[in-house]
């Protein structure tokens, strides 16, 4: 197998991966960076993020407020040292992006504008119309083009990490257009491959969000943390699951049930605020977990609309006016018309909560380090934990930037200080293992299972057993199904035997990753006998700070289900309190 030697290998070229790469190239142009991605950088799912990126810059705001909003929003599962560092660095990173050309929306006087967002007391979300993620991604990608020390490996599918002498020393990836495997030997590896929302049937996630990096680290012995915390975004289009940004509600959009009633006030987020004048941190600007949970309750009560694609409620923006919508929410309008046949200027848009983000991921600390020396992780693939049990909208785009830079700084230090001895024999052995894995998968015949079939069963089981509300029974059932599916995975036969861009193979590898991670979600949820943030148990409705103010760690056990353990949460300034999103809250 051919080997490519580099200093820092970054897997994933979305916002997090690109930021890391630029940070290395800018500050240490003598180091070689290999930026490896299974898609061209512009296709990364960062492009689909709409609303914005949070950072304190306005005079009526403070770092403390951002800190408190985030820790409370995360139901006190966030590591507070991480949150403190994050809110501090956020404004600088967003300004850096602006200097790199990001077309942030502006106030009349030319300074950067901010919009209200869910769960935040003061508006601090920088935005670029309603295509913030798209503009951030393209700004970073285009900026990266000026650094010759970043070598991109576009459309290389990373398969497994190379770990020798207790250190991560690289990654094996397949050149998708030829099927050739390459051994990337690196002194540090940064994973930035995004989340794994595709394990659920309806999500805002693109096809590529299959948790490849998280699964690679998991298989290499790094625990997957807090995987049971899956965020449902309250407003996704029916049938496709396409995202309608939280910015819709930030601009004044409201949620109505089948009777036209703004039902959120019945769930501790009242009193009802005047139409078109949203009040921060209450009603439609409450946190995402509460809003999605309110939908579920409305559904049980029969207050939702029945459609052929399931139950729904209305996102009403008709009172905002055409001019305002065209200026602030043009993509939302286009999406509603194209994919739902509804013009939000004229009619309320039917929506439902859809899986959007995974708070959980690879166990990392404030330095983006994983427990495995030489391995770092940034963005949705990681769990630092910034977002705790529930992420506030617009924190994740900023997270990519802050921790992308942080990972770079630490990876550079690691590269400079570690010795460059590579255990060539061990590397060769591991690389061969990957080769055999692929060969087995491609040459297998007589299989009776289909990729689409197993994928569907996995997704259906997760949605019914590990959805917005969970119980012991539903979770046990899902765990059983997933364990069974992992066995049946061996029965998949690839009909495409080509070496050239074999998407049958890629989908099989992705499904394998999803199945492994799905188990961490279900088993983690089963073990966590409390309700916190986005993890809600009908059989354990209260938050249990005594037993469960802790991070779930899921350890890979091969063919068996993961071993679950726990890890302390770092609490500094904010002791666990009550999440109050009613209008009277301070």
């Amino acid at each position: 197998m051919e080997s490519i030697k580099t200093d820092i290998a970054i897997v994933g070229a979305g916002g997090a991966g690109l930021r890391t790469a630029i940070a290395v190239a800018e500050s240490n142009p003598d180091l070689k960076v290999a930026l490896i991605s299974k898609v061209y950088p512009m296709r990364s799912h960062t492009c689909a993020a709409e609303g914005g990126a949070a950072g304190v810059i306005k005079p009526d705001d403070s770092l403390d407020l951002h800190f408190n909003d985030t820790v409370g929003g995360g139901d006190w599962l966030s590591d507070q040292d991480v949150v403190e560092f994050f809110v501090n660095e956020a404004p600088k990173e967003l300004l850096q992006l602006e200097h790199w050309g990001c077309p942030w929306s502006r106030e009349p006087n030319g300074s950067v504008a901010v919009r209200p967002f869910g769960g935040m007391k003061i508006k601090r979300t920088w935005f670029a119309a309603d295509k913030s993620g798209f503009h951030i991604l393209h700004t970073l990608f285009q900026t990266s083009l000026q650094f010759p020390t970043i070598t991109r490996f576009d459309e290389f599918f990373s398969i497994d990490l190379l770990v020798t002498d207790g250190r991560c020393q690289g990654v094996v990836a397949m050149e998708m257009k030829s099927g050739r495997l390459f051994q990337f030997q690196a002194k540090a590896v940064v994973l930035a491959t995004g989340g794994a929302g595709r394990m659920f049937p309806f999500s805002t996630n693109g096809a590529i969000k299959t948790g490849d990096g998280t699964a690679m680290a998991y298989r290499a012995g790094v625990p997957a943390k807090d995987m049971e915390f899956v965020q449902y975004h309250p407003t996704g289009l029916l049938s496709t699951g396409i995202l309608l940004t939280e910015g819709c509600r930030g601009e004044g959009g409201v949620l109505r049930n089948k009777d036209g009633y703004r039902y959120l006030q019945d769930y501790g987020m009242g009193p009802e605020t005047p139409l078109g004048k949203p009040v921060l941190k209450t009603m439609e600007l409450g946190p995402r977990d509460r809003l999605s949970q309110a939908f579920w309750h409305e559904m049980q009560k029969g207050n939702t609309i029945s459609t052929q694609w399931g139950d729904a409620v209305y996102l009403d923006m008709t009172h905002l006016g055409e001019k305002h919508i065209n200026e602030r929410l043009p993509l939302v309008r286009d999406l509603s018309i194209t994919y739902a046949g509804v013009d939000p200027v004229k009619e309320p848009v039917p929506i439902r909560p859809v899986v959007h983000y995974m708070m959980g991921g690879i166990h990392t600390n404030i330095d983006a380090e994983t427990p495995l020396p030489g391995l770092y992780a940034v963005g949705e693939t990681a769990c630092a934990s910034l977002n705790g049990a529930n992420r506030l909208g617009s924190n994740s785009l900023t997270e990519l930037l802050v921790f992308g830079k942080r990972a770079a700084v630490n990876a550079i230090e690691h590269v400079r200080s570690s010795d460059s001895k590579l255990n060539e024999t061990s590397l060769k052995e591991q690389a061969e293992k990957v080769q055999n894995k692929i060969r087995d998968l491609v040459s297998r015949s007589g299989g009776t299972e289909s990729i689409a079939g197993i994928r569907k069963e996995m997704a259906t089981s997760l949605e019914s057993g590990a959805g917005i509300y969970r119980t012991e029974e539903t979770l046990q059932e899902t765990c059983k199904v997933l364990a069974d599916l992992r066995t049946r995975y061996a029965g998949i036969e690839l009909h495409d035997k080509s070496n050239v861009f074999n998407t049958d193979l890629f989908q099989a590898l992705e499904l394998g990753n999803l199945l492994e991670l799905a188990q961490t979600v279900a088993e983690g949820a089963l073990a966590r006998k409390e309700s916190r943030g986005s993890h809600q148990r009908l059989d354990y409705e209260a938050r249990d700070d005594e037993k469960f103010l802790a991070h779930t760690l899921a350890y890979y056990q091969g063919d068996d289900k993961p071993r679950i353990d726990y890890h302390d949460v770092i609490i500094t300034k904010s002791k666990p309190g009550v999440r109050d999103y009613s209008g009277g809250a301070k």
Partner: protein
Amino acid sequence: MNEIKLELDILRYDPEKDREPHFQSYSVACQEDWMVLDAINHVKDHVDTTISYRWSCHMAVCGSCGMMIDGKPKLACKAPVKDYANQKVRVEPLANFPIERDLVVVQDDFMEKLKRVKPYIIRKEEKPIEEGEYKQTPAELKKYKQFTLCINCLCCYAACPEYALTPEFIGPAALALAHRYNQDSRDQGLAERHKVISTPEGVWDCSFTDTCSLACPKHVDPASALQQLKIATTTQWYKELIGMGGN
């Protein structure tokens, strides 16, 4: 919900098996609200898992799924099956690019050209981050905003007859992106990009057929950017002639 019958003729090509591309037919019972991409996904999932194509976001923002649908370059995720009900639809890889495999084209040429036009902020002096943002009024933002919307889907390259006949042409999307930066009030790189834009394979290969703008699914209007570039490039040429070209 009503069902729509779609007859897809998909162009297949596996360099390990085929000397030439060939069509393969699939009949799909579609739901009324499906896009062509949903129909293709259905074929891959349930009928023929060997079809290769690129897709991801299914919301017309990642640019992966550009392909020729009935001879026109489109995003498969934004082409309603309703438009092709009860007829045969040819599905082919984007025109004017070499075929890697099935509906996957080789995009290397575009990636190189994108880099060539220097699509990033170029300044003589950087303002320190501590001093805050470069002020940019809503009007200054609006000036270049439209050209920031390009998702690099390459439909414009597939539509452009110049690119078809003169492959050295840098092309609509790359040049429009250069113009986006030229128009950004924070940028000072016009003179540097001029060296690339003013070449024969730069903006001067464009004969303004406007087919790029007609094909663009995001209404970027690259043709407009290119005509503006022609004027700007000519002006810059004269300026440099009399020694007032800037850097």
